[in-house]
């Protein structure tokens, strides 16, 4: 029996490159960042990695990382 279309396969970017949704992109100011990783914990998309690098292919620019950063190390820059 053909399993199509009952089975859907795991895919990174299931909705495409959602980075295109952004009006603003978060930029990390390295000199202020103390790598507390709070932004990593709270990013709904999970696009911030252990080195606090942002995967701009998928970052939707929600701004939560900017808000949560205690060091004010993230700035939202217009696209």
């Amino acid at each position: 029996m053909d399993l199509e279309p009952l089975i859907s396969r795991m895919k990174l970017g299931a909705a495409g490159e959602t980075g295109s949704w952004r009006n603003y992109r978060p930029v990390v100011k390295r000199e202020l960042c103390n790598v507390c990783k709070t932004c990593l914990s709270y990013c709904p998309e999970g696009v911030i990695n252990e080195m606090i690098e942002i995967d701009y292919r998928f970052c939707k620019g929600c701004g939560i990382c900017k808000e949560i950063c205690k060091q004010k190390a993230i700035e939202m820059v217009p696209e």
Partner: protein
Amino acid sequence: MQGDLQTKGHRDGTRVRVLLTSNEAIAEAVRIAEPEVIAAYPITPQSPIVERLAEMIASGDLRASFVRVESEHSAMAVIHGAATAGARVFTATSSHGLAYMYEMCWWIAGSRLPAVMAVATRSIGAPWNIHGDHTDIVLLRDTGWIIGMAETAQEAFDMTLQAFFVSEEVNIPFAVGIDAFTMSHTAEVVEIWNPKIPERRQAYRVLPTDRFAVNAVTMGKARMKARYDLAVDLENSAKIIEKSDAEFGNHGGLVEKYRLDDADYAVVMMGGWCGDAKDAIDVLRGEGYKIGLLRLRFLRPFPKKAVKELSGEVLVVDKGNSDIRGVLGIEVSSCGIEAKNVVAGIGGVDVGVEDFCKIFKNFVEGRIGLEWYL
């Protein structure tokens, strides 16, 4: 005690003849099929099936999980979940219970999961009526389920076992219909035996190590393909049903032909009341009329071939209606047959041999078009 007889009967392969109601016969068949998960909600007149299964599990005769659900919708949902995980499953219902689980019936058929359900066909209200007719079973008609209708307790037993086999062959759920009370609660002689159904197999199952989703939101063409595949496989299930007929009681495949070979007049019916209809056929034959019965064993897949082969005058006697027309009347006409149609026996109104003689007499004497036998 009844229970002991059955236990000896199936385990060592011998055949045992016992007095059983269709409800009990189905419970026996389920026990032999050894499902892993059973979930059912009681409803008159199916409750004895559920109770018998619970007894069997309590006594150790059947090793299965029995989930006491709070509604039929949940019964079918539990079955769906268990089947998804790879378990052999069973449920049973009737009438309003079938209506309550309707959404899940579509879901499990569309999911292409093997499952077996017994339906004690009972009138759907309003107003309330607990007796037998075929107004409920038609609910399943368009869902994609295989729908069988037994005539005797023996056939109910055989068909239930065949249901487990066929549904797992074709990945389509299979409903076994028995008439409420006249079959569900009426004892007949049943030969219990074990046809040795293979281990459960299914097209897919879901395990925690998997990384896929099942039944996600699916657009247009892909969704249509799913429905098409189900329809095609439902058609092809007829072949499996026919091929396995000998193994499961030799009841005739999609249909049973009773004195039909040389018949000028053919009656088309389904269900338990066909027993009395056959007696009436015999009476009319005795009077010289060349009349026969095409008993539909399956509502789906619909026995189009057998219906199209009917020659001469055709009468369809229905125990359930759509509008002014009977359900089978509509189905048979869709095969290009211009059939007469009588709707009778709704709400469990007794239609016995004399009544059938009257109806068939009117039929062979050309006095019937479309009418209700009130």
